């Protein structure tokens, strides 16, 4: 990394430190607001750009933070430092309720819920006598540090920007951790993450609550900076404006929040001076410009403004893991020949279509069982049923002696079953290392707070070492830090296998692992699977390459039109009349 890359950030930090001495009061006020808005927009970046859900009601959470403090400090004369945790607690309660209510529905119900919530809270603020109705609450006490009361804009400037930079620091740490990877998988990788043991609904609620808490802190700071609150700044319109900031700045980038908040605030300032003259009447017409701007950004440059600025800053570092850390503990190996998986009379219907019809077989530790059959025979459907991705219509699946057919995918993963997908499910923008590390999710336990303040580093190093080892095993070491999406499809399948191995599985479900591989790569894959078998792992394999299957499998099950057609050793199957009939056509 060139030292020159660090000059600009350091200059900016220095500029921030001296700003209150150099700039006039008006500019400091503007910078204070930019800081406050950035805090909220930062939460939206987490939520929208990283987590793939969004909220139009962030202003309402700002309102909860502000009103809680306003009410408690004026009516009950509490110290503002005590009202902050109360406000955060209230915000978390509301966010958790909203999150719990909408989390099982598809993604767009949460934002719709936040619109309704944003409106009703706004009307509530405006109509509750205790909160001063539409006139609001005035003469809030200023914040104090011991005896010293913070009164000038400059003093608040330091406080606000300290909070903001701390939040940015914590969030960057968080995203670069075990929990962070789970959160990043929410956008476009929910199914895969569930199959790797991530509790995705919980991860979704965590980001939503986190974004709400950031908004609440912003509200608390705002209330004591202004020393006055009324409902207007907490309306739905303001909530929408926060989202504009995040999107215009760059919704997938932490710094985009600051850029967006700055741009929109300055633009608003300019437009509010200029538009009334142009249009000959007053009103918040700047929203027309913002809306159009937003539509153009979404149509033309969905990544916002930040990517344009990014090249002036040091590039993000992709860390290669260090070698000399202890390996992660492994699960107790099943004894050789233990019956790992038993599929009993499993059926799956989609409406009138019978994809799986009363299928039964078992897989033992230390054997490769192949599932073959023509396209549309129901092999991948069966995989989804066994691994808990799709509920079965009827039948039972037992894994290591326990019935698992009613468990969600993440619980089955916890018990030692892992899988790959026929249609590769990687997070294309993330590095191969991080993608594989998602597989090791259940083998770490540090949570949100440990990650935010970097208390998880020892565990993180072990997780990454494990991931790197599995990558090496699959012959992908040279691609460790490449973006997963940049690999050819065959290698992406190998990344999927590495990810499944990182879970330390007893049973591996591989859906067409050899598709798209070259001859030598296929041989290497065959060797890897044999080694795994010798270690006592059970392997259930769907594959179309018959040479590959017959050379590897101990037993074979043949499916056709959702039914089990035949089962036996590769030699028996190759001579089986019904199989020959299905594959080659009958002899008239």
């Amino acid at each position, binding site marked *: 990394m060139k030292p020159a890359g660090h000059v600009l950030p350091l200059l900016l930090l220095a500029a921030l430190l001296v700003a209150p001495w150099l700039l006039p009061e008006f500019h400091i006020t503007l910078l204070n607001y930019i800081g406050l808005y950035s805090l909220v927009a930062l939460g939206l970046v987490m939520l*929208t750009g990283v987590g*793939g*859900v*969004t909220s*139009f009601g962030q202003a309402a959470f700002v309102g909860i933070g502000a009103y809680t403090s306003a009410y408690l400090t004026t009516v009950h004369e509490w110290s503002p430092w005590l009202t902050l945790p109360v406000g955060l607690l209230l915000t978390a309660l509301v966010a958790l*309720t*909203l999150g719990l*209510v*909408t*989390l*099982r*529905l*598809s*993604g*767009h*119900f949460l*934002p*719709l*819920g936040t*619109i*309704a*919530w944003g*409106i*009703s809270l706004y*009307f*509530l603020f405006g*109509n509750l006598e205790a909160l001063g109705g539409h006139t609001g609450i005035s003469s809030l006490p200023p914040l104090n540090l011991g005896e010293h009361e913070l009164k000038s804009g400059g003093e608040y400037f330091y406080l606000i920007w300290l909070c903001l930079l701390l939040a940015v620091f914590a969030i960057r740490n968080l995203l670069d951790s075990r929990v962070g990877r789970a959160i990043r998988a*929410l*956008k*476009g*990788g*929910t*199914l895969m993450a*569930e199959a790797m043991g991530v509790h*995705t609904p919980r991860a979704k609620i965590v980001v939503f609550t986190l974004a709400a808490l950031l908004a609440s802190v912003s509200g608390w700071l705002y209330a004591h900076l202004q020393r006055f609150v009324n409902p207007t700044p907490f309306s739905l*319109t303001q909530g*929408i404006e926060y*989202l*504009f900031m995040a*999107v215009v700045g760059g919704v997938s980038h932490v710094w985009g929040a600051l850029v967006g908040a700055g741009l929109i605030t300055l633009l608003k300032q300019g437009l509010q001076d200029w538009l009334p003259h142009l*249009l000959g*009447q007053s*009103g*918040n*017409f700047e*929203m*027309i410009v*913002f*809306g*159009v701007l*937003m*539509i153009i950004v*979404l*149509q033309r440059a*969905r990544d916002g403004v930040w990517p344009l600025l990014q090249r002036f800053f040091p590039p993000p570092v992709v860390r290669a893991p260090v070698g000399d850390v202890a390996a992660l503990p492994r699960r107790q190996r099943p004894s050789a020949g233990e019956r790992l998986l038993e599929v009993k009379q499993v059926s799956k219907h989609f409406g009138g279509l019978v994809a799986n019809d009363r299928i039964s077989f078992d897989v033992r530790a230390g054997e490769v069982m192949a599932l073959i059959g023509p396209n549309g025979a129901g092999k991948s459907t069966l995989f989804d049923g066994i691994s808990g*991705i799709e*509920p079965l219509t009827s039948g039972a699946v037992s894994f290591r002696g326990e019935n698992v057919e009613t468990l*969600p*995918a993440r619980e089955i993963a916890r018990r030692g079953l892992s899988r790959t997908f026929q249609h590769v499910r990687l997070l294309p923008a993330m590095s191969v290392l991080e993608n594989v590390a998602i597989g090791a999710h259940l083998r770490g336990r540090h949570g949100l707070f440990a990650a935010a303040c970097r208390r998880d580093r020892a565990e993180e190093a072990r997780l990454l070492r494990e991931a790197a080892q599995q990558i090496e095993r699959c012959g992908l070491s040279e691609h460790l830090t490449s973006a997963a999406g940049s690999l050819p499809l065959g290698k992406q399948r190998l990344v999927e296998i590495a990810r499944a191995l990182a879970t330390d599985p007893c049973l591996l479900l591989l859906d067409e692992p050899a598709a798209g591989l070259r001859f030598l790569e296929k041989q290497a894959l065959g060797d890897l699977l044999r080694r795994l078998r010798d270690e006592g792992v059970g392997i259930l394999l769907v594959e179309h390459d018959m040479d590959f299957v017959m050379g590897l499998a101990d037993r074979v099950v043949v499916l056709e039109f959702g039914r089990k057609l035949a089962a036996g050793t590769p030699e028996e199957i190759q001579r089986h009349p019904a199989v020959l009939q299905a594959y080659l056509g009958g002899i008239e």
Partner: protein
Amino acid sequence: MDLQIALLLGQDGIANGAIYALLALALVLVFAVTRVIFIPQGEFVAFGALTLASLQAGQLPGTLWLLLCLGSVIALIDGWEAWRARRFKKLPTIVLLNGGAPLLLAGALLTFSPADLPLTLQVLAALLIVVPLGPMLYRLVYQPVADLTVLVLLIVSVALHVVLVGLGLLFFGAEGSRTPAFTEASFEIGGTLLQGQTLLVLLASAVLIVALYLFFERTIYGKALRATAMNRTGARLMGISSRLAGLLSFGLSAAIGAFSGILISPLTTIYYDSGFLIGLKGFVGAIIGGLASYPVAAAGALLVGLLESYASFWASAFKEVIVFTLVIPVLLWRSLKTRHMEEG
């Protein structure tokens, strides 16, 4: 509350509920066909009502300029594309449809002073101005992002909503309008006065719902829309253009919105930003139907109307709070009913 007040409130609630039901149907339609959660639906309600009001006041409404603007922009963009693709035969249609037709309408309104026209023609003129805005906005705003996620489409919708509310303020000012009733007739049933306009709202809503049903069941375009709603790719393979389906559903939705606005503006004062809350109440109904079921959405919307009406009697200041907080238990109920993992 005595029986008489209860009946009066019920009458109010059902009339509003009927409007919410129409909007809920339009929202479900647009969502099913295009995956767009059409937040700006409400703006069409306000635009419909306020455009009629300004025609009646003898002014040319701002929405007409919007129509001319959008039309010319589309004529330019589509014309340029056709030119580059060397499809010169398409040029006249593009220019006449997007640029010529709005100009013709503007010319007609300038020639005949709209204030003196009979009510039916005024209504027709207002619809002719507002309804084409729907497909035009689809073309300019949604079509370039039509393949993106529901989430991006939703953010686009919210942005468009903000733009349209701002334009509403610019066009019609902050003052509200109320248009004269279509009918002054009133009936007395069981000691309660039943307003003719309320009946008219109910009747018109019922007719519209039946017409929509027939459209979807009997006409080829209706069937094409249903096919697109069920399976976009499949419909496309069968030669149904998803662009056409989008334009058509936005046209229908704009028509339902504008007509709803015209229907209720004699009953309640409409401001430039009233549409949003009205539309959102349709939304609550649509959410009750899970954005998928037409009859449940309509029933839900009626329920919202009644709830709002009685809430305004018991706790008028908290009317909106009650209606919108209702979404939470509804979402909870829906969430308990679903047991399906979806790829986000």
